[in-house]
């Protein structure tokens, strides 16, 4: 089994980890966004809370979510390892900085990633941790068992201008991270093809704009219109 350690400690293997975990997280974002969009329905949070209940109780989704936590941690740790290694491979920098040969996002995946990680931690403490520790009130809807009222803390948070700004900025950071990360994940996997790569790149661009935009609209909507 020596080859496994060798694979995952090699520079290309490390990128494989980043790529696979990254793709998983990209997919997760869609699921998460679908849930969050429930917040926009005008039912006082019912569909959102039911959705939240489903996400935290369905055994299959629970299993996947442990994978998710693991992958977030793995992606972060590996990312930090790569960042440090890459920094040490290029100890001295050029006096003249240029962005003419690579996008700003691609040059700053590490720092962007760290900001995102901080956001995730705050995000988890604020919503997920409360839900898991039973710190939330319970509400009942017709024909359902009582569920945690996650909607209320979300509503309160989104009425706080500082939090809304923090949230929107974080989404912007995610957008940049995705903008490079999406197509980069495919390149790391070795999927570069004259015919398909342009398509993957465009898809990545669209995804990196639409998904963070979808997330960011919600707090803005709450703040101004709810």
């Amino acid at each position: 089994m020596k080859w496994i350690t060798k694979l995952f400690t090699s520079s290309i293997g490390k990128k494989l980890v980043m790529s696979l975990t990254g793709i998983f997280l990209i997919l997760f974002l869609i699921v998460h966004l679908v849930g969050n969009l429930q917040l926009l329905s005008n039912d006082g949070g019912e569909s959102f809370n039911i959705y939240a209940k489903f996400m935290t109780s369905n055994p299959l989704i629970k299993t996947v979510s442990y994978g998710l936590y693991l992958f977030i941690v793995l992606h972060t740790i590996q990312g930090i390892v790569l960042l440090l290694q890459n920094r040490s491979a290029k100890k001295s920098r050029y006096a003249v900085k240029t962005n003419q040969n690579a996008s700003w996002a691609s040059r700053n995946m590490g720092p962007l990633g760290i900001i995102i990680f901080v956001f995730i931690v705050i995000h988890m403490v604020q919503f997920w941790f409360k839900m898991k520790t039973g710190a939330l009130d319970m509400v009942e809807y017709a024909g359902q068992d009582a569920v945690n009222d996650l909607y209320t803390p979300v509503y309160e948070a989104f009425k706080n201008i500082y939090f809304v700004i923090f949230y929107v900025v974080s989404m912007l950071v995610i957008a940049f991270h995705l903008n490079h990360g999406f197509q980069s994940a495919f390149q790391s996997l070795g999927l570069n093809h004259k015919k398909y790569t342009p398509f993957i790149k465009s898809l990545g661009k669209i995804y990196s704009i639409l998904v963070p935009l979808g997330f960011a609209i919600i707090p803005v909507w709450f703040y101004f219109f709810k």
Partner: protein
Amino acid sequence: MKLKLKVWRQKSANDKGYFEEHMVTANEHMSFLEMIDVLNEELISQKKDPVAFEHDCREGICGTCNMVINGRPHGPSKGTTVCQLHMRVFNDGDTIVIEPWRAKSFPIIKDLVVDRSAFDRIIQAGGYISVNTGQAPDGNAIPIEQAVAADAFDSAACIGCGACVAACPNASAMLFTSAKVNHLNSLPQGKTEATIRVQKMVAQMDLEGFGNCSNTGACEVECPKEISIANIAAMNRDYFSSMVGSEESV
């Protein structure tokens, strides 16, 4: 045209480097290196130490010349080595900042001269086809599809200058290594050793202390031979399949 140069000077690997300013009068038909020649002649006439820089063929093929000009390896022109960069792309009164390749695995020897022997060691690890002189079958014994030969050529066009490493914010040598791996692995003659080759060359590349590829694509943009990062993807593929699928291991 009058130019202000800020040139990196460094006595040796262990000395501290600094920028030195010089005014140079050049004309637009000069190549960039001829402009440096003018500066050096001037320095020598003042009994000063000329700026050490590497250069040889001055026609863009030997891969010896290496300078980062205003933050860009080989300067601003696309698909061009420093020796083929001409002064007409600059304007009278410009300030030009000239630095050496910067990467831990390319230690500075003097001024703009760096040690790129890590590249040689990567090639020595597996950048060859094991055929002794005299063992070869007839050149036409194995037909090679025209497109395959052309792609192999595009990868083989690498001049080993190191601009990819210099351009990469991580000082990764993936473009260099993958170009060689891909050149050989894509040809029928190179397929027999493909598995071992990619493993050995990647291992050596890692050992040399180059950074990890983060797909910024800066290498491809600065490569004077415009070698594509599709080579990197292809090497990733070869590497995974050789590690996972093959029984051979080094």
